[in-house]
């Protein structure tokens, strides 16, 4: 029997509405209880959380671990370590590996590798279509049985509306959400950054906001027809946020996530032609950033997800148009969100915690993101005021592509507990 007692932290559990100083008692990897001055008889391991926040283990539902296939950029192990250092107890692995996770075999491989390393919980997301080519549906039911929690052709959105409709219908039979990276590939073709004044000034080809909007609109209409649970990945445009709010008002099972970078940075924040600011969707206009922040405040957006996308240094050390899309996100997510959402006064702490815990758990339909007795013993302990500077060269990730290198933060992760074990501590 192993016991961990987290003492004297400010326990915030959005599921139960708790917000107050208490102890968290974990036994055999499971939450036993939360309360004041819990006395545990046998020699328990104790973690002092005085002056810190103790929350359910954070969940990042959008991570690229690159394994199998791109181990030079990241592995399940290095990505898991970066997740733990970012306060995440659970991460979802996007299927754009090589081979693509479009079968139970690959799903089992990812889940098995993650289990073997035993750092954080890794929940695979299966592909919507075979090889994510947007044509034939992947083996969705088998992937579900092998542990996949959702389906997505992230990065290669399903362009054929009929295929998307069938995918939504099929996923509904298994109670799985369909996650889409919303980008009309014809409208965005050749683009390298958000289409606007900055792209015109820099002479870079644009990815217009409408390339995201038209696909969000299409998918919401399909979600209504099919009754599917539909989730917009990394929402970034004003119109897309407004449409998700509209869908929710109609009572549809539609949800959305936002990345820390889309709520912190706009296209004009990019140092000229810096590949570490290049991702999809691109950093959009200041007005879009404002809309994403508003969506978090008013509830249109349900979760924070990082879209952690490692690329080795050599690939980002190129002409901007040749740099691949994507940036790291796991280790800076909480720091960025504390600054932009909490210290700025936009939302209260329980709402911030919800975006990292109960929000994604609800979307995925998993019994996590809560400190209720019997839930997995995952806890994220973080500080609200510790000053620290992000040094990407000390990252646990194999890659170094972060726009937040050298940035100072106020508050961030201090310890990550997974199934009652401290897997990382600052």
């Amino acid at each position, binding site marked *: 029997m192993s016991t961990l007692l987290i003492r004297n932290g400010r326990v915030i559990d959005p599921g139960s509405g708790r917000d107050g100083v208490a102890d968290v008692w974990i036994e055999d990897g499971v939450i036993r209880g939360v309360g004041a001055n819990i006395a545990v008889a046998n020699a328990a391991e104790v973690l002092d959380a005085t002056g810190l926040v103790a929350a359910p283990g954070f969940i990042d539902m959008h991570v690229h671990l690159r394994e199998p296939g791109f181990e030079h950029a990241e592995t399940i192990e290095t990505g898991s370590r970066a997740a733990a250092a970012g306060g995440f107890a659970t991460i979802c692995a996007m299927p754009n590996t090589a081979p693509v996770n479009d079968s139970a075999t690959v799903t089992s491989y990812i889940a098995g590798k993650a289990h073997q390393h035993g750092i954080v919980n890794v929940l695979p997301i299966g592909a919507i279509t075979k090889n994510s080519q947007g044509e034939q549906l992947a083996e969705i039911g088998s992937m579900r049985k092998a542990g996949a929690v959702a389906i997505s052709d992230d990065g290669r959105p399903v362009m054929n509306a009929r295929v998307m409709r069938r995918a939504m219908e099929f996923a509904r039979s298994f109670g799985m959400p369909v996650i889409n990276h919303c980008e009309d590939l014809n409208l965005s*073709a050749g683009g390298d950054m958000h289409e606007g004044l900055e792209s015109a000034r*820099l002479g870079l080809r644009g990815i217009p906001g409408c390339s995201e909007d038209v696909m969000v609109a299409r998918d919401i209409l399909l979600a209504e027809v099919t009754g599917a649970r539909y989730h917009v990945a990394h929402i970034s445009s004003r119109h897309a946020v407004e449409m998700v709010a509209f869908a929710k008002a109609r009572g549809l099972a539609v949800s959305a996530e936002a990345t820390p970078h889309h709520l912190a940075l706009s296209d004009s924040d990019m140092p000229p032609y810096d590949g570490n600011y290049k991702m999809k969707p691109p950093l959009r206009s200041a007005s879009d950033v404002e809309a994403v922040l508003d969506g978090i405040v008013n509830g249109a957006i349900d979760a924070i997800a990082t879209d952690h996308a490692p690329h080795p240094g050599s690939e980002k050390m190129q*002409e901007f148009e040749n740099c691949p899309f994507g940036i790291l996100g796991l280790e800076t997510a909480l720091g960025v969100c504390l600054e932009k959402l909490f210290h700025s006064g936009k939302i209260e702490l329980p709402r911030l915690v919800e975006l990292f815990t109960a929000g994604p758990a609800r979307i995925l339909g998993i019994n996590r993101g809560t400190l209720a007795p019997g839930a997995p013993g995952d806890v994220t302990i973080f500080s609200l005021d510790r000053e620290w500077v992000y040094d990407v060269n000390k990252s646990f990730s194999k890659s170094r592509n972060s726009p937040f290198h050298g940035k100072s933060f106020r508050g961030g992760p201090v310890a990550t507990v997974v199934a009652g074990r401290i897997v990382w501590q600052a």
Partner: protein
Amino acid sequence: MPRGLLGIEGLERGEIQAILDRARDFQPRGEHAIRKYDLLRGRMVVNLFFEASTRTRTSFEIAAKRLGADAVSITAQASSVAKGESLVDTLNTLAAMHPDAIIMRHAASGAPHFLQRYLDTPIINAGDGTHEHPTQALLDARTILDRGARLEGLRVAIIGDIAHSRVARSNVHLLSKYGAEIVLCGPASLLPRELAHIAKGVTLTTDMDEAIRGADVIMMLRVQLERQHEAAFPANEYFQFYGLRLEHLLLAKPDVLVMHPGPINRGREISSEVADSQRSVILTQVENGIAVRMAVLERVLSPVPEHVHAAH
């Protein structure tokens, strides 16, 4: 950061004026037309062209030689780029040979800006993708000024494929800094609306007559088929709506200047009659290219301007 020349946008008006003034000293005059100087004797510049170019490369080469510098020209096809070397590695290798400046043309917007962050050798941008072509704007300004006009308050129509034009962007920045009135004109698919906010004094129109009416200067742009990633405009309709013909000149000021960065496509964006007319200063632009590039090279390679010492 080393003192190169990456673009017009980041320059102060005073710096631009200094280059334009100095270029005047280097213009051939009267009988003894061409002079050679030894202002940059012992200095070495590398012309690194990743994109086809005849006039700009030759112009830089001649400019360097007239100042007494040594110039080495490399084209991408002949270099290790063809063997898969990355841009950073290529430039680091060249920089290790200690040239005093690298003159660079590249098809990717921002390629020289990206490289300058990692390199101590000053880079002179000879055109980056669809971003800037600073020496073209400088030679255009020199050409306008040679005709006695001031840049302040001038009405300049820039017509053609604005979206893909580095010449347009550099000219917009330069003319705007002087308070000129700039009208950008082209089919809407080649005329991003955001460009109206890129600098002060810029307006947009899709109507060629409106752009030319009352213009002091008409700058025609080449239709860049190699940069068209899609059919933004039916090619065979282009000349009908956006080609410059003699009748257009009647709408402009009587002493209007017709300019073109070259190479010109006769019958596509400009009629032969206009290109060869008295109003055309296309060849003067080419001539001024050398003088302006001499002034730029001198500025980059010897930061403190000296008086001209002509080598007789």
